[in-house]
């Protein structure tokens, strides 16, 4: 996927002005937040399960080389094929090659963020293949030629009336007089449109939420059943996934499954959780004849050796973005690449380079909600701060910002000077503010005052009040 992370600030401004988007974000509202809170409250062991899940992921990453070797052995023993992809381009070419070997024309696809990461659809379409997204949200954004705006709910930015318009535009053979005012009618229409695509597909591509070393299995979690139709009806099943999805055992996967859906949509488990191991067996009457797993690195090994290694624990539940005040205000597209929200602010600079994505770690008030709700305990604010430091060290921010920060640091490290200056400024600002007790404009502060008032200081500093109270014996 092509990045627009470099123009994050412009993207964010446009998102704030975009009435349609703001309406959709309002519809999304606190839905995810409340559902997760309810699911957590209903399972007393939730927090402890999260801690154990974190330990599983950390343990796996620390022994990733060994578990990958076991995984490969088990996968091969069950008749599957493993393809190792160092880069996004490698993965695309490997998948294209499998499709070409089968003379494939029609590809059905389940939802996969790794597929978005490598720009798979573009590459396959460029090669003349027809690719049909089968997850309803992905289907909608494919019709609209848009990237996903959320890692769990890719079309969360689209209104039902827009979906209706898109369906009428694309499903030309259906009667124009049909009633699509009810979302259920839209779901039913998509179901009917995709039925034959599932059956006619030459290759079905899905992602994986987990890979299991013990059994050589891949796991997908879905609600619609589209991933299962994709991988059961096509003669070839390709899994596109990445090395961080590996866990050791079925028991370990079971623990993570307990926290994944609860964190994501507030369900106790998704409707379908499917464990796939190898191709159809000799006696089987259905299922794919071939099973390929394309395992992507794309910088993850490098990340493993870096201070951002803990972000590899991420299980892509989306809780961080659901709870993020910045995401809630601007939606996912403004972030400019596959992974939005706080986890995107941490991952995208790794994937795209800091020069491209430096604005993302700054797009946070560091309020800490994301870390609080992350089932994998990823210290997202700390990691964003680390990117900011790296950016600063690399001379990234403009001279004006760097200069101001240096002056600030100089003053803040000298308490007497600090108190002297604030002791002069606060009474002055307090007086200037007048009866309104706030500023609509201040020199050098337009970044703040352009969109909101700045509350005026009371006129006294904390230190002067403290001294006064101590003198009067009130403390």
């Amino acid at each position: 996927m092509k990045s627009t992370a470099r123009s994050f600030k412009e993207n964010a401004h446009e998102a704030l002005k975009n009435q349609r988007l703001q309406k959709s974000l309002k519809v999304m509202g606190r839905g995810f937040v409340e559902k997760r809170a309810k699911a957590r409250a209903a399972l007393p062991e939730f927090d402890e399960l999260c801690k154990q899940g974190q330990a599983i992921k950390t343990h796996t990453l620390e022994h990733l080389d060994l578990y990958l070797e076991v995984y490969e052995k088990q996968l091969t023993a069950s008749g599957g094929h493993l393809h190792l992809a160092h880069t996004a381009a490698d993965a695309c070419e490997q998948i294209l090659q499998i499709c070409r070997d089968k003379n494939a024309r029609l590809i059905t696809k389940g939802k996969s963020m790794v597929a978005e990461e490598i720009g798979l659809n573009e590459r396959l379409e460029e090669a003349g293949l027809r690719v049909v997204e089968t997850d309803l949200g992905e289907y909608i954004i494919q019709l609209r030629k848009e990237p996903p705006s959320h890692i769990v709910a890719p079309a969360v930015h689209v209104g039902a009336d827009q979906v209706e318009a898109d369906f009428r535009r694309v499903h030309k053979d259906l009667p124009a007089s049909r009633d699509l005012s009810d979302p259920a009618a839209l779901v039913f229409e998509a179901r009917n449109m995709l039925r034959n695509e599932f059956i006619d597909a030459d290759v079905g591509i899905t992602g994986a939420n987990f890979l299991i070393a013990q059994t050589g299995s891949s796991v997908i979690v879905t609600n619609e059943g589209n991933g299962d139709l994709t991988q059961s009806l096509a003669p070839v099943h390709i899994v596109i996934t990445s090395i961080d999805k590996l866990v050791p055992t079925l028991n370990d996967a079971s623990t993570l499954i307990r926290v994944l859906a609860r964190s994501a949509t507030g369900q106790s488990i998704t409707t379908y959780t499917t464990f796939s191991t190898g191709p159809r067996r000799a006696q089987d009457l259905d299922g794919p004849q071939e099973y390929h797993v394309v395992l992507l690195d794309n910088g993850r090994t490098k990340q493993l050796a870096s201070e951002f290694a803990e972000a590899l624990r991420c299980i892509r539940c989306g809780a961080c973005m659901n709870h993020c005040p910045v995401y809630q205000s601007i939606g996912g597209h403004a972030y400019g690449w596959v992974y939005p929200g706080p986890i995107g602010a941490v991952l995208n600079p790794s994937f795209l380079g800091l020069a491209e994505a430096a604005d993302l770690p700054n797009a946070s008030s560091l309020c800490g909600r994301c870390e609080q709700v992350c089932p994998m305990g990823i210290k997202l604010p700390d990691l964003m701060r680390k990117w900011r430091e790296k950016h600063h060290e690399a001379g990234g921010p403009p001279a004006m910002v760097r200069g101001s920060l240096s002056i600030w640091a100089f003053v803040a490290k000298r308490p007497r000077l600090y108190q002297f200056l604030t002791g002069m400024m606060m009474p002055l600002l307090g007086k200037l503010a007048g009866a309104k007790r706030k500023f609509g404009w201040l020199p050098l502060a337009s970044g703040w005052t352009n969109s909101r008032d700045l509350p005026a200081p009371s006129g006294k500093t904390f230190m002067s009040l403290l001294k006064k109270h101590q003198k009067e014996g009130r403390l």
Partner: protein
Amino acid sequence: MTGFVENIRSALGVSASDPERLEIVRKHLDDHTRNLIPERALRSHQELVDLFIQTLESVEATVAHLPELADVASEVARYQIVNDLAHELKCGSDTLIAEIDWSQQSDLKILSGPAIGKDAVSLTHAFAGASETGTLFVASGPQNPVTLSFLPETNIVLIRAQDIVGSYEDAWLKLPWGVRGPQMPRTVNLISGPSRTADIEQTLITGAHGPRRLHVIVVG
């Protein structure tokens, strides 16, 4: 794997032959250690069966609890009439399903094989059920072709009460096991309700791409 795994080893700063790491991994894989099991999965069998039914019903599945396998045929017929479904049923070669006596349901057509587009109703057999989330475990194979669980509009699933356990971990034990773990069929489908989506304005709608109705028959 060479190159790929070597890169990971150098990123981790470890060597391939470190006996301590090899032992940690071997032990973790072979000991079948369980992590925390929630209390709701550790109740008496009777309570687990109740929880299983109640949880499935809370996610828009319907459940019939019958005392005997002999009652299944009339329950299926009743369900099809109530829901105005075609009097047809597609199933695999499952041995438990094969024991059902359909002779009293003369107008019910029993078909065998994988699902094709026009099949309206399927009958499958879950080898286990996990009460903690009302989850059916269905193994693919000639006995339960995987398409039966996804293509028809209505999926009826048979499960014996004795196969209902508390946790996912206990459910995995119902598969045949080798040394390293269960022998996995091509797919194990964990099913917890009828197909659904909330992709349009977060409105929950049942019946996305998979079955629009899930009816579970617990026997025993």
